[in-house]
């Protein structure tokens, strides 16, 4: 009896996948789990389901740092999903080199990705040895300062227009019992905030000299010393944040418990979800109001090489769905990010997104650190800045010295 029922169950598990093969299930893993992000990813799922296939959601909670190891080990361990999110750039570089990822060049040529995707650097980041391995879905820029209008009103100071005014308003905010700058405890937040300060204060050229040319003399020089000075201010102003996740920190700004937050434009999804209006309830300053440049990193979907032909076909469908104009608009409006194609109409975009689109149109763009540095160097940087922001006794000079060492050893 037992054996027979066991056999039946076993047989069922074998038969099921064949039976379901008509409408192809494609598991898609990603780390979009905050409220605004989940709303955005639902748009992608809807668009893919409309093609007659089925989006099987594989959300992994706990931000990219937690999710990426799981994704990588599933791909290297021989249990690949149908498609997976990565920040395009160098995160999936070695997986591609090891031949584990699928070449999308055919789909890309057919759909003329080279012409529609703007800026072109996005597709360049997906390209290794002339072949295209990922489908970019959005442009995310880090260089934003989000300010709570209510918090500044409570403190009795005008909403700042740039970083210096913000630093000057710090004491008034503190007096009103408000944390001036919310910086969550996850290491990537501190490291990201520093990169933003670097572009805003030291400028684009210095940024490239440090992160692209890996020039350690520049990293140890006077320009970067100014950036560390600003990071020191930021550290002082972030005291008392006491939250971990970025969306909790954003929530402090939404509720007026914090004056501002340096965070990428994905924070905008949270403001939207809380029903706040740009310009009225919150203010955004691209490039910290100093240097209006945005980085064009972002999210992309990579497709592991699968043996199943049905699924491989579904992968192609998904890739073209992701870049379809309708999907791009619906997804990016919810996500708060910018679309990867220049030819879609974003009339419904709010003030902050329009600012971003303007900067993009002017071409004031830089490559993000994910595209320039290896995961290893990024991790070392995270270690350094999470220590720096948590430990007031670490001097900016010491931190700069260690920063220069990391740059010197970067590949």
């Amino acid at each position, binding site marked *: 009896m037992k054996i027979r029922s066991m056999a039946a169950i076993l047989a069922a598990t074998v038969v099921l996948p064949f039976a379901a093969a008509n409408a192809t299930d494609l598991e898609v893993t990603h780390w979009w789990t905050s409220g605004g992000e989940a709303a955005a990813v639902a748009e992608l799922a809807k668009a893919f389901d409309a093609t007659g296939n089925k989006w099987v959601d594989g959300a992994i909670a706990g931000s990219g*740092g937690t999710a*990426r*190891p799981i994704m*990588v*080990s599933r791909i*290297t361990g021989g249990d690949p999903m149908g498609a997976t999110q990565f920040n395009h750039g160098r*995160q999936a*570089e*070695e*997986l591609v080199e*090891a031949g584990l990822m699928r070449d999308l060049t055919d789909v890309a040529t057919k759909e003329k990705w080279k012409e529609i995707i703007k800026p072109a650097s996005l597709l360049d980041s997906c390209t290794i040895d002339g072949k295209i391995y990922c489908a970019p879905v959005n442009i995310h820029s880090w260089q934003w300062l989000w300010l709570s209008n209510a918090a500044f009103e409570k403190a009795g100071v005008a909403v700042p227009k740039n970083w210096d005014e913000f630093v000057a308003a710090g004491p008034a905010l503190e007096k009103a019992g408000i944390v001036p700058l919310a910086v969550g*405890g*996850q*290491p990537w937040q501190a490291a990201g905030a520093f990169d933003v300060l670097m572009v805003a204060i030291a400028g684009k050229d210095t940024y490239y000299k440090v992160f692209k040319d890996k020039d350690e003399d520049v990293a140890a020089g006077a320009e970067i010393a100014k950036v560390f000075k600003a990071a020191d201010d930021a550290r002082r102003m972030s005291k008392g944040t*006491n939250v*971990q996740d970025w969306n909790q920190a954003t929530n402090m700004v939404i509720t007026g418990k914090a004056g501002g937050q340096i965070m990428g434009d994905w924070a905008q999804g949270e403001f939207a979800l809380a029903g706040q209006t740009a310009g009225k309830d919150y203010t955004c300053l691209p490039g910290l109001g100093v240097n209006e440049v945005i980085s064009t990193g972002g999210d992309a979907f990579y497709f592991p090489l699968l043996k199943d032909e049905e699924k491989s076909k579904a992968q192609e469908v998904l890739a073209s769905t992701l870049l379809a104009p309708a999907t791009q608009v619906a997804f990016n409006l919810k996500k708060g990010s910018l679309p990867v194609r220049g030819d879609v109409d974003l009339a419904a975009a709010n003030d902050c997104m329009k600012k971003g689109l303007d900067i993009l149109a002017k071409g004031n763009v830089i490559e993000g650190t994910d595209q320039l540095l*290896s*995961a*290893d160097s*990024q*991790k*070392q940087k995270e*270690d350094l800045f*999470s*220590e*720096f*922001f*948590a*430990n007031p006794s670490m001097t900016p000079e010491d931190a700069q010295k*260690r920063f220069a060492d990391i740059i010197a*050893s970067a590949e």
Partner: protein
Amino acid sequence: MTGQAHTGRPSKLLRNLSSKIASIPMMLTAVVIFLGGTVWTVVYSFTNSKLLPRAKFVGLDQYERLWDAPRWIVSIQNLAIYGIFTLIFSLVIGFLLAALMDQKIRFENTFRTIFLYPFALSFIVTGLVWQWILNPEFGVQSVVRSLGWESFTFDPLYNSDIVIYGVLIAGLWQGTGLVMCLLLAGLRGIDEDIWKAARVDGIPMWKTYLFIVIPMMRPVFITTLVIIASGIVKVYDLVVAQTSGGPGISSEVPAKYVYDYMFQAQNLGQGFAASTMMLVTVAIIIVPWAYLEFGGRKRG
């Protein structure tokens, strides 16, 4: 094994045979996975493997970088603090509890259950529970403040200097019950006659414990020591759940360094070097134990 026992084959030869067959997979696992995996890890720690292992040898580079990394140094210091205090406190508190339990008290079963209960929780749950208890806005601090002590401050998890002690409290809460149980079993193994003899000689109770009973419990203590020590070296989930290494890097531990560098930083070589250093630490603990335990038995 138990299944075999139930079907009840009395023949000694057959039972031995099946247990021998049954242990073949375990022996293979031990040799191939544990030993083989260990050797493989050590070998690859001398390479510059990134996301995928590559046999490109770079000598001691990974180790030099490891010992230059402030985060690794902090991890080692934290492990030392956590380790020493866990050993001392869990043995002292565990033994005191066991000794109290041994006084033929009422409701011993109830107390034993209560003290052992935390051990049934995983480190993740323990970490989360203590994260809430030690959170200044919800936990101990706010309770004491609401009782009237307005300036009372107790926020170990948000203070870089003492955060590791916050982790230590949670670790002790979780692990002391087990130590108590092990030592209580040891105490029960002491012959009643020894107590009677001590009482006849008029030796006070504390002296009996200190000079007669504890030396007699040496094997139990050594076992307990090894169990605690291995728990210390591998501490990871508790820190992840409670502080995720923060604030900054001030509650990092070696096991977390290994994981973060192997998977987040996609630098296998660095992670392997760190795990090899952990292996050395374990060897430092195991070798003296093996010497005491097995070397001692031969002499006795």
